[in-house]
């Protein structure tokens, strides 16, 4: 299996989405979740008169880090090392997994507690650990549900949003061995608390991701709600953090912006319940051995593209998922990547190469809601259009692409649209030809080679009188 399996779609998006749209439970859950979080986010964002300035500042901070990423990474390495931590570099997923499993094996650890981290899902660390006989324990409630079910997350923020309480109760009864259990969310949370508390208390090693890391001080930040993050970051003797190289921010003071933007955009809270900041190792407090793994895995490929590199500003808040009409209906699994939704549609194809995920930039209506919601002002629609161009050009290389149906059709359309006489002649022909297909002014299905156009959309019929005809008659 390749390194990028967690990122690479197996089938085109429309095919996967069609499957997901049949799942009424999923659609109901998603509708409720996205509506609720949108309303909460709107309420707390409206409280801040300087939201626009904070977004500008957030974009600027991330750009400052990305535009001098080599220097910033070296500053971070230096600061973490001075604070008693060890820094490792990983070119790809396999290398990162090797580093983490190597540390675990050197210490003879059999079980690792994990705080939710999309980056470790991206590199599929759990499978690597299991392969050498080490048990990874996901400690975020939703991640635990997903792990116990042998499932994959469907939302960045609420990964088990596709599961209802009855399913979770059954799962906990079966896997946690709790016999007496109601489907009350508080009772389910209590069952998870008991199960995990035991594991936290005996854990020797934890693995985390990172929301931010400060180049100047070496301080790493994890933002969370349940306290499982604090447990992982505090109790074990040994802590390993895996972070994508784009998570870096230059200065300590940058927290004053990002810790306002992230919670409000993510959970719609003024501040999430727990935010942990730590710098290397502190004698007498928390893990006494700390490793930071800096992961590339395609990020430098994203950095090469002057238009697309803004995707690396992403702080994984998931606001763009919650406002996206496509995500709201199709759900996260349709994107077939650990990065779903609008941000996934621009990040995934860039991380793995457009030729491996060519349908994702088209998984959008370009309505622009994601750009409005993004706390670091990633212009997702512009990047989508840019990547669509790349996908088309990539598909066109080679004879079949160049002389295929779509290319020939677009060329013919270009010729028709560039001359008035040709355009009006085409309209007259279409008016006659469309007759058997039109129902109430719409064409739902075009025949033959043109059927691709109407597979996912309806076409307005050519009207009996065009504006030009009307204008000429009027004169």
């Amino acid at each position, binding site marked *: 299996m390749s390194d990028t399996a967690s990122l690479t779609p197996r089938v085109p998006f429309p095919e996967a989405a069609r499957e997901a749209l049949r799942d009424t439970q999923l659609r109901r859950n998603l509708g409720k979740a996205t509506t609720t979080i949108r309303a909460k986010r709107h309420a707390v964002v409206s409280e801040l008169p300087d939201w626009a300035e904070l977004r500008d500042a957030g974009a600027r901070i991330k750009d400052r880090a990305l535009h001098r990423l*080599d220097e910033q990474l070296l500053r971070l390495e230096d600061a973490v090392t001075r604070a008693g931590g060890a820094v490792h570099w990983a070119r790809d997923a396999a290398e990162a997994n090797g580093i983490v499993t190597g540390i675990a094996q050197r210490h003879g650890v059999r079980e690792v507690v994990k705080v939710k981290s999309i980056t470790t899902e991206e590199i599929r660390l759990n499978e690597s650990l299991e392969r050498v006989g080490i048990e990874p324990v996901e400690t975020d409630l939703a991640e635990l549900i997903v792990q116990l079910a042998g499932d994959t997350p469907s939302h960045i923020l609420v990964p088990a949003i596709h599961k209802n309480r009855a399913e979770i109760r059954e799962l906990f009864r079966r896997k946690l061995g709790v016999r007496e259990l109601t489907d009350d969310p508080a009772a389910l949370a209590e069952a998870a608390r008991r199960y995990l508390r035991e594991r936290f208390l005996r854990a020797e090693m934890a693995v985390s991701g990172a929301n931010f890391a400060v180049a100047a001080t070496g301080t790493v930040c994890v933002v969370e*709600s349940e306290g499982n993050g604090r447990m992982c970051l505090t109790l074990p003797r040994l802590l390993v953090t895996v972070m994508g190289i784009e998570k870096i921010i230059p200065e300590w003071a940058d927290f004053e912006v990002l810790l306002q933007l992230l919670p409000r955009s993510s959970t719609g*809270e003024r*501040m999430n319940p727990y935010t942990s900041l730590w710098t290397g190792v502190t004698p007498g407090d928390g893990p006494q051995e700390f490793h930071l793994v800096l992961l590339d895995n395609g990020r430098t490929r994203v950095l090469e593209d002057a238009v697309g590199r803004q995707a690396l500003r992403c702080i994984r808040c998931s606001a763009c998922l919650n406002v996206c009409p496509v995500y709201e209906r199709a759900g996260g699994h349709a994107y077939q990547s650990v990065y779903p939704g609008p941000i996934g549609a621009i990040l995934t194809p860039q991380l793995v190469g457009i030729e491996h995920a060519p349908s994702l930039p088209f998984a959008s209506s370009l309505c622009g809601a994601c750009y409005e919601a993004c706390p670091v002002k990633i212009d997702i629609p512009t990047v989508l259009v840019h990547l669509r161009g790349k996908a088309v050009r990539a598909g066109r290389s080679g004879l079949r692409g160049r002389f295929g149906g779509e290319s020939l059709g677009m060329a013919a359309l270009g010729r028709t649209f560039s001359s008035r006489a040709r355009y009006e002649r085409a309209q007259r022909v279409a008016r006659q030809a469309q007759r058997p297909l039109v129902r109430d002014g719409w064409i739902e299905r075009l025949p033959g080679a043109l059927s691709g156009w109407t597979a996912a959309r309806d076409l307005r019929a050519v009207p009996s009188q065009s504006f030009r005809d009307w204008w000429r008659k009027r004169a």
Partner: protein
Amino acid sequence: MSSAREEVLGRVRAALAAAPPRPVDDGMPAYRRSDGEPHEAHVALFIERAADYRAEVRRVPRGAEGEAIADALRRRGVRRLAVPSDLPADWLPAGVELLVDRDGGLSHAELDASDGVLTGCALAIAQTGTVVLDGGAAQGRRALTLLPDYHLCVVDAGQIVGLVPEAIERLAGPGAEERRPVTFVSGPSATSDIELNRVEGVHGPRTLQIVVVG
């Protein structure tokens, strides 16, 4: 190992050289660094916002904190109370067994078995209802405020700032060189992972009570 380092750095440099980014402005947009409200308004806002996140907050005049602490512990039925070794003497309640964490002496199991923990804080943020712990005076190490199911936190009114930027600036001030771990606590731990129903109290203390003094 070093070859991975050189290669990643090389890729970064090549990517930036191939398509040089436009320079980013030096300054920062004019977001608020203070809300201009008087301190008394910040204290009132902190109490309101912390309560909004289901922390139980009570304000008492200076000198009455000992009584307020004893009262809160009595009502909670706390018998074994974990405390850092440097709490002010007048906070220490009578009639309660104190588990003093001297030089990290308490084991995780002992903390887990306690009925609660009493600490002070580094500062508090009005705008977000947040208590900030930095392992400084009267706070102890992180495990202390994590494993017990009940956290009683004393906040001096003078420790309350208005906005997040003021808190970040203070945390970077004198003493920051040590870079002790910092924890922002906004209400008790919570999850909304099951059908988006909020459940208070998962792994951290399920009950957070705050006594504001002064």
